């Protein structure tokens, strides 16, 4: 188990708001701030656009962690989208943890367009913490395809 | 019965050989398919009126009526983009593979049609299933079996008239009376404007020795049935084909149930006489 965790490279789905966090990711690139390659970025117009379903679907389809990142409170391009989002996320996160999902599978951050370095820092932290949790299992949909059948239909 | 009956749910692969964009809005296209394994094609024997379950792996299956005539070499399906599966099919290109199982359902009563005048009344994409039987009758080997053939066809706009190549060919044939109409004209359109039932009333076909075959949107069917009845067509001589949400295609899943009938095995072709005895749940 320990060895598995050590070599484990988590897949992390990051929903980034177009106006702040996505631009922050851009800036991290321009500023050459290094961060681990574990995140798969999905650009959304606003953190308020992130439906809890998106997060759950990511987990169901095998994401080891999900990060949602938007503008700092008060800075939302749509004035208050992230305020509404914050309430929704609090409910989702607490509910998942109350049901027994590992704390840290689902994380949230505020990163502005000017915070390239902070973006890389957040990604480093998220990746580290998800790595510690090990591969996600609890919410992942099982496909139960027998190995020999998978092999049979893979051959052209 | 054998210990392991053949699995009726497995689709057979077909390759798209040609895609024809039919409507000006590009949301209706005809897909011409050929069998990947010729032996599947030899087992797939169909007659006009039948349908097949088309499947896109990962998206699902949808029942689509066969629009080609068995006198033609390849299978053709005219598909309007509506739901999950039809949208997926619209994303496909020539050379792509999709799955087909069938043919399912009953056929047009070709024996009843023999030696009679035939009147087709179609609206919009309702022409797709009728095109199969029209081209079957117009084939050199069958034309002599039928007397006068009249085709009335209407669509919302000129751009929505499907199978323009066939419409032109039918219009040019001396042994076919082809009349078309549109609900709304468009720039450059010089033809008739008006609804299909109005065209039917103007044409006033004689019911003697004539079978009417109709397919189109429910509201059109409603008025066409009314007009035909007023013209004196007996319900047994009015034939239509129903559209229902189907899933299995083989009379098990219960979805296309209308009264004791399953549209997928007892239909989709019904006479108006039969429809009158069925619950109005279609």
């Amino acid at each position, binding site marked *: 188990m320990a060895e598995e965790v050590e070599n484990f490279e988590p897949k992390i789905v990051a929903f980034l708001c177009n106006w702040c966090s996505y631009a922050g990711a851009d800036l991290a690139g321009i500023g050459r701030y290094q961060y681990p390659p574990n995140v798969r970025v999905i650009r959304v117009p606003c953190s308020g656009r992130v439906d809890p379903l998106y997060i759950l679907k990511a987990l169901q*389809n*095998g994401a080891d962690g999900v990060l949602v990142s938007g503008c700092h409170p008060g800075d939302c391009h749509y004035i208050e989208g992230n305020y509404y989002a914050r309430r929704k996320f609090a409910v989702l996160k607490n509910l998942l943890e109350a049901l027994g999902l590992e704390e840290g599978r689902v994380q949230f951050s505020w990163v502005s367009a000017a915070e390239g370095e902070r973006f890389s820092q957040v990604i480093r932290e998220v990746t580290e913490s998800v790595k510690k949790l090990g591969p996600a299992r609890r919410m992942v*949909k099982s*496909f139960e*395809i*027998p190995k020999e*059948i*998978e092999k*049979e*239909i*893979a*051959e*052209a | *019965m054998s*210990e*392991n*009956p*053949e*699995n*009726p*749910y*497995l*689709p057979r*692969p077909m390759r798209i050989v040609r895609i024809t964009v039919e409507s000006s809005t590009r949301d209706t296209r005809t897909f011409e398919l050929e069998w990947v394994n010729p032996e599947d094609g030899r087992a797939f024997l169909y007659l006009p009126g039948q349908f097949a379950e088309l*499947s896109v*792996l*990962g*998206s*699902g*299956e*949808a029942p689509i009526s066969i629009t080609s005539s068995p006198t033609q070499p390849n299978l053709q399906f005219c598909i309007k983009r*509506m*739901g999950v599966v*039809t949208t997926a099919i619209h994303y496909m290109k020539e050379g792509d*593979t999709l*799955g087909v199982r069938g043919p399912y359902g009953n056929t047009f009563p070709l024996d009843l049609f023999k030696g009679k005048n035939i009147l087709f009344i179609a609206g919009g994409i309702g022409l797709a299933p009728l095109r199969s039987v029209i081209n079957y009758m117009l084939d050199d080997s069958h034309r002599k079996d039928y007397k006068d053939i009249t085709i009335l066809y209407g669509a919302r706009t000129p751009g929505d008239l499907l199978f323009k190549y066939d419409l032109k060919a039918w219009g040019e044939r001396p042994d076919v009376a082809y009349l078309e109409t549109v609900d709304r004209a468009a720039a450059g359109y010089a033809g008739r404007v008006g609804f299909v039932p109005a065209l039917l009333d103007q044409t006033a076909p004689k019911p003697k020795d004539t079978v009417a075959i109709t397919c189109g949107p*429910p509201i059109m069917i409603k008025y066409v049935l009314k007009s035909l009845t007023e013209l004196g067509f007996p319900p047994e001589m009015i034939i239509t084909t129903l*559209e*229902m*949400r189907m*899933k*299995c295609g*083989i*009379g*098990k*899943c*219960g*979805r296309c*149930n*209308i*009264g*004791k009938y399953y549209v997928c*095995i007892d239909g989709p072709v019904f006479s108006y006489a039969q429809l009158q005895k069925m*619950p109005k*749940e*279609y």
Partner: protein
Amino acid sequence: MKDKILLKENLVSFGNSLIEQYRLIAPVKSNGFSLYKPVGNASEICLDYLRPLKSAKEIFFPQNETLFFFNKKTQKIAEPAYDKKPTILFGAVACDLAGIAAQDRLFSAGAYLDSYYLKRRRNSILIGMACPEPGEMCFCGFFGIDRFASDIADLFFTPFSDKYYIKVNTEAGARLVESLPDAAAADAKTVERLRCENAEPKWDIPPLDELARMLAEGFEADVWDEIAQKCIGCAACTFVCPTCHCFDITDEAKGEIGRRVRTWDGCMFPKFTLHASGHNPRTKGGQRMRQRILHKFSYFKDNQGVVSCTGCGRCAEICPVNVDIREVLKQLGEACERKS
């Protein structure tokens, strides 16, 4: 074939002798109610029940079933491997056996055989169990179902004193109980007496043939809207029903690999008949209720020769708003009487 006797105290060892060669499915109690479930040790079998909460249909027609796996890239498909180990359904009550008989007809009817159902069904043995006392929602007697016998069961158990009387109906059944002692004539008499003493009560519902006429006449009756007014449009009734067989087929994919699954569906769901175009032939609750009732009592009978209700009472039992199929039939009868 001689009928047999099994002492109740030997039931567990008898059951365990079956587990070696068969997949044994029997009523098991968990969370306060009993369900037909695969049994690892016969001591789990619980016969102290009315009838399991769900019917036995899912043993041959599971709620989710992979029809085949596919690979979107190669366009290849493959059926899942099939467990060759035969199944024994033990402890099925007569209403559930009648349900299986109805499903047998449907899945082998017409030009298309349902290979998935038939593969399982043909590789199975049914062992029935007499139902000691009908529940408060049960009315199997209305359909002439005998709680103490079933034609389609290979073996049928009737408990009395410290024993089970085993009626042997088939060769396959006989092989399972070969080593057990034969039943005496006196035992047969005791069981027969038990059966007579537990004859069904009378039902305050129009008799079946009259009901068929009423259903045909009552198609447009306003009573359907009345009956359906309280229905909330869930499909719990269809899911616990031993004969409801409507299903949906959908694809699920993960990357290039996927599967086509069939899952139970229900005519009580408002979207069951919704077309892709947005047209829906059954938009009203009354129409959906009529579909369910007429399918059971009229359409299925026309097509398969039997009524597809076994009077198990499960739909009434679990209905969140107490739509009781017996009352539906009664109301319908009253409405038809009013009309004529």
